[in-house]
């Protein structure tokens, strides 16, 4: 065929069209990586130091404070793991964190649902009241809180830690959840009404499911905050058997102040659960903060 053999003159003579070459590789710019790595290093260095320090002996630490374990010693960790105090305190911490989380989530969702979807007088004021709780650090309130808890008779009792923790975690929870619940379209609620749901039915069948990402976020935040909380347990709990892990670390490090390696091992073991928890649910937390129901 003539058409196929004819040289494509027109194409050859035409000025070459600018070809957009993708110079950026899939890896992105090295500067980004550099900055990111520096930041990651800064964040991780103390954690790495503590974890690695637990694998060394005290003499190793004294000789070269920033060296790597040589040889690796696991006895620090095994000793901590064998001690009943550690397990007792881990149990206390877990119990406090779990009950706090459940309390915060249950009360927070209920309060947020009312604030977000019921119309009543003083709703704005109530929301502001909860939000004001954010500006009220527990440290400031600790003395009256202590007296109050003493009057209730919850001193040296885990419930004395749990109750105030729930109260202090509510502002964050409500501030995160209210916009979340408000974003559930009105029509879905109306459709549910027509389908035979009451207010409560809607709450249990729709709201809980649709706000799950937000609920998870607030739950995780409450859990981690409770796990790491120090000042409240310090005031409320007197007995070593009742201590939560942060107190335990404190007590342990004053008890074994000479044995740095063991303190490091204890510390790293006590922060590992929160760390694992946080990294497992990190994506959920971000998803929850982005909020809103789509579709």
């Amino acid at each position, binding site marked *: 065929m003539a058409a196929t053999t004819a040289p494509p003159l027109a194409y050859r003579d035409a000025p070459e069209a600018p070809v957009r070459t993708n110079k950026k590789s899939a890896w992105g710019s090295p500067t980004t990586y550099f900055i990111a790595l520096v930041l990651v290093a800064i964040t991780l260095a103390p954690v790495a130091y503590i974890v690695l320090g637990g694998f060394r002996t005290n003499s190793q630490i004294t000789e070269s404070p920033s060296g790597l374990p040589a040889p690796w010693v696991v006895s620090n960790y095994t000793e901590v793991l064998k001690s009943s105090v550690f397990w007792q305190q881990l149990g206390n911490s877990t119990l406090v964190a779990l009950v706090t989380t459940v309390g915060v989530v249950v009360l927070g969702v209920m309060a947020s649902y009312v604030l977000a979807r019921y119309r009543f007088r003083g709703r704005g004021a109530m929301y502001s009241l909860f939000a004001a709780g954010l500006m009220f650090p527990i440290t400031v309130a600790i003395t009256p809180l202590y007296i109050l808890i003493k009057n209730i008779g919850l001193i040296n009792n885990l419930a004395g830690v749990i109750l105030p923790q729930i109260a202090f975690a509510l502002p964050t929870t409500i501030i995160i959840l209210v916009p979340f619940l408000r974003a559930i*379209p009105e*029509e879905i609620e109306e459709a549910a*009404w027509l*389908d035979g749901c009451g207010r409560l039915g809607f709450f249990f069948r729709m709201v809980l499911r649709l706000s799950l990402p937000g609920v998870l976020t607030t739950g995780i935040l409450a859990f981690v905050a409770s796990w790491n909380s120090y000042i409240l347990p310090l005031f409320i709990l007197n007995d070593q058997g009742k201590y939560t892990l942060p107190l335990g670390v404190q007590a342990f490090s004053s008890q074994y102040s000479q044995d740095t390696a063991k303190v490091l091992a204890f510390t790293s073991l006590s922060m590992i659960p929160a760390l694992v928890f946080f990294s497992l649910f990190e994506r959920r937390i971000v998803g929850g903060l982005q909020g809103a129901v789509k*579709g």
Partner: protein
Amino acid sequence: MATVTYDHATRVYPGTERPAVDQLNLHIEDGEFLVLVGPSGCGKSTSLRMLAGLEDVNQGRIFIGDRDVTDVQPKDRDIAMVFQNYALYPHMTVADNMGFALKIAGTPKAEIRQRVEEAAKILDLTEYLDRKPKALSGGQRQRVAMGRAIVRQPQVFLMDEPLSNLDAKLRVQTRTQIASLQRRLGVTTVYVTHDQTEALTMGDRIAVLKDGLLQQVGTPREMYDTPQNVFVAGFIGSPAMNIGTFPVSGGNIEVGPARLALPRDVAGKLTSEDDNKVTLGFRPESLDVTSESNAAAFPVEVNIVEELGSDAFVYGTLRGSLAQKDDAVITSGAGDNQVIVRVDPRNVPMKGERVFVTIRPGEEHVFSAATGQRLS
């Protein structure tokens, strides 16, 4: 199956003076497809939501069948509603969405499944039953919303602009599907739209509302042929009717050089408030293009010609004695001093050309100049 009756139903939103729906009286027959239509803010959605129980009724009553449902909870009214944005439950599959009402009502699982599958078959959704709404296209979501209503086998379907989120082509397609589905199921349906084409094509009867007041109820043909007032005349029909106010003298309406005979009975209805004038409406297709020599013809200068294939419409400016600078005599969908004329699509005038048109006798609509009510 049931009738629906609005008896002086009124809704006043808290904090407003004027009722959103004012003394609505409307009776919808069993199995009828009634379309509520009107410009935005006319109270059509409010009327529907009053029937659904989503809006309080401040005065009057609403009946479904013989049952007074004015104070009945939405869920106990035995109705199903299709929302504008579909309001599908995002966390449930299509099947769960459609069967949700039955599940709440405690219907056995096997029966739910069977009814959902039947509905899915009708709506061509069978292969999507296990998907979440997120994974569906707009048209499919719309059908799921329809399916959710069908599965319940309610007494009345309520539809609140269910097509407005679809693209133009799908809207036309779905329009006929909904209408034929309704005929097949025979369920009384109240349908809200702002689109008069949708109203004309779908409804057994149409109710036009404006500012919360019912203007007219009737079949599409009645609405088109005998609009009861100027508002309905201008609202129903596309392109819109040309409407103008003209003097009456000696039993004739003087439309520029043209004389249209005003029937004696109509002339008798004129009051002093009309000041010897009538409002005259004529549809684009009631105009004939003639020559300049015709004494009754008035000139129109062509601005644009819209060719639709089967039809062509001239949008033109009035010229000659009818054209006035300040006080527009004629208004149409195109604006003041503009008329729309349907012309032969095989023989369209050029832009800027001057054509002479006459109103075909007997196809004019005469309204009172003072009240806007129909006289003829």
